[in-house]
C-alpha cells in the first residue's frame, strides 16, 4: 500500500485553481487500479484498507484530512453517495464501487475479485 499525496502543483498547474472537487475525485480515481478515499482517523476506512490488503491488493489511498482540498472533496463524495458519510469510498478501474457495505456485498457475492482482476489489481 502506498500513499500518494496530491501534488497538483507538479501535475496540472493550469487546472490547479478552482477545479471542481468532483472532477478531481474522478481524475484521481482513474489514475490507479484501486483507489480509496479515506480519513486517517476513520476506523471503517482502516477496515476497508485491511480488506484489500488481505486480498493481496495494493490500493492507492487518499487521506482527505491531509489534503488541502480534502474538505471539498468530502462534500462532493457525500453528495455522490447520498450519504452523510463520505468515507471510505472505493473506486476500481476508475469506476465507483461504493462505501463499505457495497464493497462487502460485492465481495460476498463474488463480483469483487473479478473486478480487481479486470482492473489489473490482482493476478492469479
Amino acid at each position, binding site marked *: 500500500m502506498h500513499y500518494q499525496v496530491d501534488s497538483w502543483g507538479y501535475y496540472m498547474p493550469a487546472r490547479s485553481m478552482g477545479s471542481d472537487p468532483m472532477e478531481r475525485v474522478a481524475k484521481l480515481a482513474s489514475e490507479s487500479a484501486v483507489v480509496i478515499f479515506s480519513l486517517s482517523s476513520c*476506523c*471503517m476506512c482502516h*477496515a*476497508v484498507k485491511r*480488506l484489500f490488503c488481505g486480498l493481496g491488493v495494493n490500493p492507492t489511498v487518499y487521506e482527505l484530512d491531509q489534503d488541502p482540498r480534502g474538505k471539498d472533496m468530502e462534500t462532493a463524495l457525500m453528495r455522490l453517495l447520498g450519504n452523510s458519510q463520505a468515507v471510505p469510498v472505493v473506486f476500481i478501474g476508475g469506476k465507483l464501487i461504493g462505501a463499505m457495505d457495497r464493497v462487502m*456485498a460485492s465481495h*460476498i457475492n463474488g463480483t469483487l475479485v473479478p473486478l480487481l482482476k479486470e482492473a489489473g489489481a490482482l493476478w492469479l
Partner: protein
Amino acid sequence: MNVPTGFIHQEGSAFGFGELEEAIVLQGLNIRNDEAKAPLFTTGRPAATLEMFPSWPMRFKQTPRGSSKSGGGSTDSGSAVNTISSKTENQLEPESPISSKNTTPLDHQQQKQQEMMASDVSRTGASQNQSIAKLPQEKRRGSTSEKQLDAKTLRRLAQNREAARKSRLRKKAYVQQLESSRIKLTQLEQDLQRSRSQGFFLGGCAGAVGNISSGAAIFDMEYSRWLEDDQRHMSELRTGLNAHLSDSDLRIIVDTYISHYDEIFRLKVVAAKADVFHLITGMWTTPAERCFLWMGGFRPSELIKMLISQLDPLTEQQVMGIYSLQHSSQQAEEALTQGLEQLQRSLTDTIAGGPVIDGMQQMAIAIGKLANLEGFVRQADNLRQQTLHQLSRILTVRQAARCFLMIGEYYGRLRALSSLWTSRPRESMMSDEHSCQTTTDLQMVQPSQNHFSEF
C-alpha cells in the same frame, strides 16, 4: 390496668383461654372479688400456648359475622371492652413476619400472660355475658364450696376448650400458609434475579426489567415476535419439503423466509442506532448464543462451516461456491474485526493518554469515537445478510429450504440449551431451599421441551 380493646377476644383463643378459665374456676378457692386480678397474674400456668407468637403484639379484626358489643360493668378490668358474641370468629393478625418462634424474654411472656388473662377476665359474649358477671359469683361460690362445679359450668368449660382447640388449629394453618408464601416469594425473587443477570427476555415486561433502555426494550419485543414468526416459517418450510411441492412453489416459501431474515436485519439497524451496546453485548440473545457472538450477532463463516457437512449432496460447482463464500466471509470478518480493534486503540488513546488537558473535550472526542460502533454492527449485519442471500443463490431451491431449516433448528437448539442451562439444578448456596429449587427447575424445564418437539 387498661387493656387495649384489640386484645380482647374470646373463643378465638389459641392461648388456651378455655383452659385458663377452667384453671381460674378450679382455683376459685383463693379468689376474692376485689383481688380478682392478682391471682390471675400468678396462676403459674405455663405459657406454652402463648409461646407461639410471644414477641408479637396481637391485634384483632372483627369479622363481619356479627359482634355484639355489650360493654358495661361486666368487666372489672376497668377498661372499655369489646364484647364479642361467641359465634364471632376473630382472626389473629400478627404484626410481624413469621420468625423463629423460640425465645422470648420471660418477663415479656408474663406480660402477655397478664394481658391475655386480663382480657379473659373482661371477656363477654352472648352466652358469656353472664360468665363474667358470674365469675365473681363463681369465685365466691368457689371460695365457699370448694371445687363444687355445676353442670352448666362444666359444659361451658368444655365448649371453651373445644373452641380454643379449633382456634389453635386455624392459627396453625394460617401460619403454614404464610410460611409457604414466603418461601415462594424468595424463590421468585431468586429466579427473577437469575434471569435478569443472564439477560433473559421475560416476555411482556421488557420495559420494567433492570436498566434496559427503551430502544433495547422495543427491539427485544420485536425480536421476540420475530422468533415466533420464525417458528411459523420453519414449519412452512418443513411442510413444503415433505409435501414435495414444485420448485416454484417451494421458491416462494424460501424467498419468504429470506425476507423474514431481511426484516430482523432492518430491525437491528434501528436498534443499533438506539442502543448499540444492547446489540454488541448480545443482551438481546440467550447465553449460549452469546458464547458465539461476533459483533452483535452470528459469525457468518462459522454458520457456513456448520452447514457444509449437512448440505450434501452438492455439485462440484456448489462446493466451490460454498467454500469461496466461506473464505470471502472470513476475509470480510477479519477486516471488520481489525477496524474495530483500531477503534478500540483510538478510544484508549483518547481516554487514557497523557496529561489531561481538557477532560470534557477528551470525553466529547471519545463519545464521537464510540458512535462508530454503530457502523461496525451495521456492517456486520450487512455481512450476515449478504451471506444468507448468497447461500440461496448457490443452492437449489430444495437445498436452500433444507439449509434454512437447518439454520433455524440450530439456533432453536442453542436457545433451548440456554433455557436448560439457566434452570439446571445447582447446589451452591441454596441448601435449605434445595427441594423447592428442584421444583422450580422442573417447572422451567417443561416449556423448553417444546424446542425439541420439532426435531
